């Protein structure tokens, strides 16, 4: 894996995130903006719930016939004059892309936002081959200046405040006037736009991701709000689309179904500002477009998920609604998850792609509140899939020893109601007596994980079952 995961250090990552005041300030926007906007968009579209079901069914259909649609897609890309490359691993995908760039003598490569390119570590591979990779999505551009990875799949720089971005621009854009005013977001945007304009014009190769690949036409579709994708793919001589294999849909009509749920779930827009289709290289009659058109289809562990209990995860259309609605994401942000994909979708996908030995914390770090599943546009049962990972961990004895032991002792009593009654009555009456004045414990041996942060309410006295039986006996008398 090109990007070194820090997911095994999840707890330390989370601790640092919780004590990072700038991050905590930035995260305030996620908790409120995205949720309210999505809710309003959904309320404006009465058939939204039906669309979610149709979107789920469509993606399930595609996953059952993935080979058929990928072959159809490839045939139609070729017919349009493009070329499709299949890459089994990150390394193969990077190698393929670097070779295409080299064969065209590229020096500068522009990129539209693509999470799969983050997954395979594409920028590092391009730079290692002596070329420059320039991110053109504003958020991606900012984090590239900072040497960071995205903390959110649709808002890569959501962990930053505008003051931090201003500092980065002043540090990097040294050719501009020091006295310029950058206090407003629009001024930051204008500056980035100006700097990037020349990069677009200089680029030899443009790389974009794809939200959907349309089998019937061989088209790829991207949605952006900045139009950077259009400039990335239409100005350079070579356009490379990089997409994971599950992005394919049968028809344009199917793509439009998914587009109807995508932006609403993501940003609360009815549609993203730009929805751009690209089909093959420039034709003779086209006013512009690339001379060469390549598609690199990345598997990188996905086909191994087909037919398993994690197949549902391949329905994901990367809208980010799950993390926007996740109380854990709200608390710690995306970087704490330690790899490319954060939040609930990352908690399921990361162990699938980098192994549960490394990603094992993520499916455990959820309260199972179910809000992610309730907003997922393709109805992925995220808590259930996280639980499946917990089952795999338990089966393979990866669950922490303390937890396993605790569970074992508890299960022994829970499965023996007679013993359970004796033990719990003794314990509860003792605890009730100890806590009789305050009604709570500020600390208690064996309950440190709880009492470090909150009091433990004291029990009232004897157990309910014992009191109930006593009451029954008294009534009968």
């Amino acid at each position: 894996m090109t990007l070194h995961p820090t997911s095994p250090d999840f707890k330390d990552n989370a601790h640092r995130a919780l004590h990072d005041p700038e991050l905590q300030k930035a995260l305030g926007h996620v908790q409120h903006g995205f949720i309210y906007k999505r809710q309003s968009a959904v309320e404006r579209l009465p058939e939204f719930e039906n669309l979610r079901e149709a979107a789920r069914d469509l993606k399930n259909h595609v996953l059952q016939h993935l080979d058929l649609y990928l072959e159809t897609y490839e045939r139609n890309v070729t017919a349009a004059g493009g070329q499709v490359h299949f890459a089994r691993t990150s390394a193969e995908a990077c190698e393929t892309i670097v070779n295409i760039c080299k064969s065209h003598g590229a020096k500068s490569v522009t990129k539209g936002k693509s999470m799969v390119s983050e997954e395979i570590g594409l920028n590092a591979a391009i730079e290692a081959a002596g070329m420059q990779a320039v991110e053109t999505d504003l958020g991606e551009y900012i984090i590239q200046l900072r040497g960071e990875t995205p903390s959110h799949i649709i808002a890569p720089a959501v962990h930053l405040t505008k003051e931090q971005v201003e500092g980065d621009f002043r540090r990097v854009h040294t050719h501009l006037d020091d006295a310029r005013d950058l206090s407003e977001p629009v001024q930051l945007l204008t500056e980035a736009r100006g700097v990037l304009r020349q990069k677009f014009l200089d680029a030899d190769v443009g790389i974009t991701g794809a939200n959907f690949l349309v089998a019937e036409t061989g088209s790829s579709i991207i949605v952006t709000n900045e139009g950077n994708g259009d400039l990335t793919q239409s100005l350079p001589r070579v356009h490379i689309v990089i997409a994971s294999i599950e992005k394919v849909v049968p028809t344009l009509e199917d793509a439009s179904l998914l587009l109807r749920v995508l932006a609403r779930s993501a940003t609360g827009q009815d549609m993203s500002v730009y929805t751009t289709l690209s089909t093959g290289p420039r034709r003779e009659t086209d006013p512009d477009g690339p001379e060469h058109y390549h598609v690199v289809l990345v598997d990188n562990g996905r086909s191994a998920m087909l037919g398993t209990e994690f197949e549902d995860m391949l329905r994901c259309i990367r809208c980010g609604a799950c993390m926007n609605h996740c109380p854990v994401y709200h608390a710690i942000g995306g970087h704490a998850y330690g790899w490319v994909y954060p939040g609930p979708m990352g908690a399921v996908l990361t162990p699938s792609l980098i192994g549960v030995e490394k990603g094992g914390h993520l499916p455990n770090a959820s309260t199972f509140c179910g809000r992610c599943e309730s907003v997922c546009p393709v109805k992925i049962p995220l808590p259930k899939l996280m639980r499946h990972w917990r089952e795999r961990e338990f089966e393979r004895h990866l669950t922490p020893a303390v937890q396993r032991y605790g569970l074992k002792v508890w299960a022994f009593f829970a499965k023996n109601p007679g013993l359970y009654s004796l033990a719990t009555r003794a314990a509860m009456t003792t605890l009730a007596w100890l806590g009789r004045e305050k009604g709570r414990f500020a600390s208690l041996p064996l309950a440190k994980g709880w009492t470090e942060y909150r009091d433990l309410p004291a029990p009232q006295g004897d157990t309910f079952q014992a009191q109930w039986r006593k009451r029954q006996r008294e009534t009968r008398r």
Partner: protein
Amino acid sequence: MSTTPARPRVGLFATCLVDLFRPSIGFASAKLLEEAGCEVLVPPQTCCGQPAFNSGDKVTARDLALQVMDAFSGCDYIVAPSGSCTGQMVKHFPELFDEPQLAMRARAFAAKTFELVSFLTDVLKVTSVEATYEGRVTYHDSCSGLRELGIQSQPRKLLASVQGLELVEMNENDVCCGFGGTFAAKYGEISDTIVTKKTANISDSGAPLLLAGDLGCLMNMAGKITRQGKEIAVRHVAEVLAGMCDEPPIAGPGKTRK
């Protein structure tokens, strides 16, 4: 159940937390059910198995599911004062069994199992309760009840019938309190951040009493509220609906402890 028997035999699944920490919720539940014309049974019981299920220990979860189904086999209905444990029995028991016979049994069990307040309103068609509570309260929608079982309007409907009670909604009443079962202990620091946001919303509502339908969430919020020194009492919604608020609130100082 196609028709409701004249005097249905309702097995009260108290939940392990109520059994151990707050029996008064069990008695309040029994009172509400009896007043609504049910015969209440309390078969010997331990736990629904959710802690094992959510820790990935499916074998123990299955054993406990079978134990619960056996214990309550003579009941017309099974009712629990918890959306979370009810969610386990209704939504997850059927997922635990691949064997056709057992799966069928789990589905039949799930079909007659209900969360307390929604059982009163949706099955028994109770529209009001005989209770008085003078003052303002705020209500937290616990996640499993809300999202697995669709419980939202039911407690509010019955609370509206309590004499003197005024419900003031807090902001983000449908957002998790950070409990999450073993999550609260395993990821205590994250859980703490989530519950701290929750108690701020509770305070901002201005209500001196917090209600919810799940003791796990209530113990988490009450424990944080007392740790922060806030003057807000915490109770299970059944205590107010049954008019049984004489016991000290959750984590509150004792008076007549046995």
